[in-house]
């Protein structure tokens, strides 16, 4: 008689993700990104030395979900807080988790200066082209023509200007070391997202400068769509304005990646 092969768990909740129900809407990719960050923290074995900074926005409660130390910043100030923490405790891995309203509107100043100073911190930037938490108003990243509660007839670029492309902008600053844009609309993109977040943390740990991983994300609730429709809309509309790819990989980062 052949021996029964023992069954193994090949996918489960990572250790660094709290075993709780999140407040996120059904199908919101915030949950996927949280899980991927937790998987990377597990893989790198850095749960005890990592500090996250939660933003104001839908992910304001991220500290209840990712099982590392956490602080809550005032709206847009995550990178200022992260700078202080990292400078006082350079042995920590410090990351900010920020939406487009938090990072690219009220927090733009902190972003640009943290990046240009080359702070050894990492930003996970969730670009869902809208203010989710406050009811779906226009964000700096809202697409031209996109309907939001504050642009009911679509974003008019004559009136409201053009969307900001954060990766392109930040990659021009000398202090930025690793600036990439990913998404999470299918398993293969999620795998690439995980690899990028891992690299970003490794860049920080090697002291190579500022790292940012943008995630082209969704907001089914405020986009007024089902979760599946939102992933389709993301691919058909957002990716053209926000192409996925590597915007800056400094030579020092390439060398580091070759060694890993």
């Amino acid at each position, binding site marked *: 008689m052949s021996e029964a092969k023992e069954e193994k768990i*090949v*996918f489960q909740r990572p250790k660094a993700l709290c075993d709780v129900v999140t407040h996120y*809407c*059904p*199908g919101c990719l915030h949950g996927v990104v949280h*899980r991927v960050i937790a998987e990377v923290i597990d893989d790198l074995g850095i749960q005890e030395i990592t500090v996250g900074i939660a933003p104001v926005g839908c992910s304001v409660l991220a500290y209840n979900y990712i099982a590392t130390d956490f602080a809550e910043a005032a709206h847009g100030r995550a990178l200022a807080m992260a700078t202080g923490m990292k400078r006082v405790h350079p042995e920590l891995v410090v990351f900010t988790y920020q939406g487009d309203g938090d990072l690219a509107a009220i927090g733009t100043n902190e972003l640009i200066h943290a990046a240009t100073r080359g702070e050894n911190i990492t930003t996970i930037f969730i670009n869902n082209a809208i203010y989710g938490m406050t009811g779906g108003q226009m964000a700096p990243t809202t697409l031209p023509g996109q309907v939001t509660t504050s642009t009911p007839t679509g974003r008019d670029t004559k009136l409201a200007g053009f969307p900001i492309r954060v990766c392109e902008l930040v990659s021009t600053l000398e202090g930025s070391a690793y600036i990439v844009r990913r998404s999470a609309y*299918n*398993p293969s993109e*999620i795998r690439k997202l995980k690899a990028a977040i891992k690299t970003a943390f490794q860049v920080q740990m090697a002291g190579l400068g500022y790292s940012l991983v943008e995630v082209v994300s969704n907001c089914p609730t405020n986009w007024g769509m089902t979760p*599946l429709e939102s992933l389709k809309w993301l691919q058909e509309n957002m990716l053209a304005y926000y192409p996925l790819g590597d915007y800056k990989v400094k030579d020092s980062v390439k060398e580091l990646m070759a060694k890993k």
Partner: protein
Amino acid sequence: MPRIVIDVERCKGCGLCTQVCPKGDLVQMSDEFNSKGYRPSKFVDPEKKCIGCAFCANMCPDVAITVYR
């Protein structure tokens, strides 16, 4: 035999797990409700076609799927 287990009480019925299975429609939406009023997804694999790739689990924003192989 590879298989998945869906925690129906954690599931928010978003359906993201139902579109990525390389074996077709092993993950489907259920007709029942969970205690929060969501229609959870369900695993339907009478012919044991699941390969344990975890694509479905990877898509789940609520980490409601565990995969065994």
